């Protein structure tokens, strides 16, 4: 409780910069989760999300985690300046995902936070051989409904809260809920105009998933250039899409379940500038 007060006072000690349209994060994603940023209108972004195998899982034998890595390839497109559509395919569960992301408002005078909503659908194509009768197409679907509220304090510090609701059509264990609530916290700090460090944490209250699941915690650094963003990070979660990383993470930092990963994105102008 004391810690929370201290953090609040530190945050409040920054005078909020109520500038219209100032970006809070370097990219539309932070580590595994999304940020309040959306893709620019008419731009197509190609994203590679790569997570090497864990340090404590025969790291050298797996060639620094390359052999047991997970990857997602994705494309995002800015339909309008506030609406982004995206799709991707992950190696984990051989899952396809698609989403719509809508930025409702920007932080500015009279509006204390930037708000963005996201709705996504994930379809697992990897067969679950342990439950062949229940492994129907409809049961392979999962959904995620997310809201992001971010605020820029001063020039450098961005804090984002993201309540997330995930729904799994199929759960195989009695202690698993179909609907799971998770609270995300993301903190970004701009070191320079082009470099920022990030912390991302997702807290799922007990009683919704198996006891062995843990909360994903990630630390990363972003490098922005013209058209590219390079994100490097360490995380105890190897999955890239929610609901997988919020519901299926079992890694523990203290046990060495640490995955090194990167996101690389490149944006291309598709629609003529107007």
């Amino acid at each position, binding site marked *: 409780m004391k810690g929370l007060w201290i953090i609040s006072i530190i945050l409040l000690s920054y005078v909020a910069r109520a500038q219209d349209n100032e970006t809070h994060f370097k990219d539309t994603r932070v580590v595994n989760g999304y940020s309040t940023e959306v893709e620019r209108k008419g731009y197509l972004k190609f994203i590679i999300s790569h997570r090497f195998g864990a340090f404590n899982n025969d790291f050298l034998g797996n060639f620094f985690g390359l052999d047991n890595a997970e990857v997602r390839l994705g494309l995002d497109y800015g339909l309008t300046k506030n609406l982004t559509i995206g799709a991707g395919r992950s190696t984990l569960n051989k899952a396809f995902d698609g989403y719509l992301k809508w930025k409702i408002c920007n932080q500015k005078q009279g509006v204390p936070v930037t708000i963005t909503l996201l709705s996504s659908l994930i379809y697992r194509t990897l067969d679950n051989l342990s439950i062949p009768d229940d492994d129907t197409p409809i049961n392979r679907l999962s959904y995620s409904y997310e809201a992001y509220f971010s605020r820029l304090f001063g*020039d*450098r510090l961005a804090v984002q809260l993201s309540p997330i609701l995930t729904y799994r059509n199929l759960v195989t264990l009695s202690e698993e809920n179909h609907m799971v609530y998770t609270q995300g916290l993301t903190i970004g700090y*701009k070191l320079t105009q082009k470099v920022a460090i990030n912390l991302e944490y997702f807290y799922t209250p007990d009683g919704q998933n198996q006891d062995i699941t843990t909360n994903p915690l990630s630390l990363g650094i972003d490098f922005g250039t*013209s*058209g590219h963003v390079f994100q490097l990070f360490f995380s105890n979660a190897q999955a890239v899409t929610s609901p997988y990383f919020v519901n299926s993470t079992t890694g523990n930092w203290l046990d060495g379940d640490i995955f090194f990963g990167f996101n690389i994105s490149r944006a291309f*102008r598709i629609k003529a*500038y*107007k």
Partner: protein
Amino acid sequence: MKKILYSLLAISILLISINWKKDKVDPTVSAILQKNGATIPQHFKEKFTETQIQQGKELVIQGRTKYQGKKSRPISKHFTCVTCHNTVKETDNLKFANSAQQRLDYAYKTGIPFLQGSTFFGIVNREKWYNGDYQKKYGKLVDSARNDLGAAIQLCAQECSQGRVLEQWEEDAILAYFRSLELKISDLTLPSSLIDSIQENLKITSQRLQEFYPLNSPATFTTPDQEKPFLAQLTGDYNNGRKIYNVSCKTCHKPNGVSFLILDDSKLTKQAFIKNLGSYKDADLHQITRWGTYPHSGHKPYMPNYTLEKLSHQQLKDLETYLTTIE
């Protein structure tokens, strides 16, 4: 019936007199020059339709239009003409249209951007285009563009806009739109004696009238090293620098603008400028304003440079003062 006829006649006479009065009071500059024996430029010889003017306007502002019932291809994926050029007057007095500070003051006053390119307003009344040091940038490509407005439009579409060759109907449409922006006598700030001469249909020399608007836009390039001695002698004006930053830099470097680099008033941005001053990298204020950047394979968008006529030594000093002062 008689009453209706007399009313119609009265209305017709009134309308004719209004139009006649309008023509008499506000003729175009080109009409006055031609009346006084000046040579007719090629781009004044053709007649254009309202449809062409509208198509040209859309091509200039949006980069595409409708032609024969279908949407045309965008001229460029990366820029439209108005990314770098205004379509309205840029100074109160057109005699000073090439004054960088008068352009800046007018831009700040009226809310128009302060841009690297010259305005299209009155472009048809000029005699030369792609002047001065643009030869250094475009070489032989300016040979035909300098003396022919149509060729200048093509050069701009292909090189400056990183677009494509315009079809003939597009070039004609843009010319038609530019013709609609030609100067009228009322746009000039003339002494009363000259206005009287015009109104009394007296002969005036072309040279006399042409003193009051620009015949071309001079362009002088410079480099950071060449400019250093000039900047060293100047004292920067913080407020003028802030004006330039707001109406010029931020016009392109804004969210959803033409550039990935977004500029703001944060300390981070200013610290980046401070750190890179004198480094000769793209992040060096002097380097980027005087050299700009260049398109290259895989990344066509670029930043055009500021000539001395579009950003004076003093203005660059002012901008430097603003960006290197953290409050």
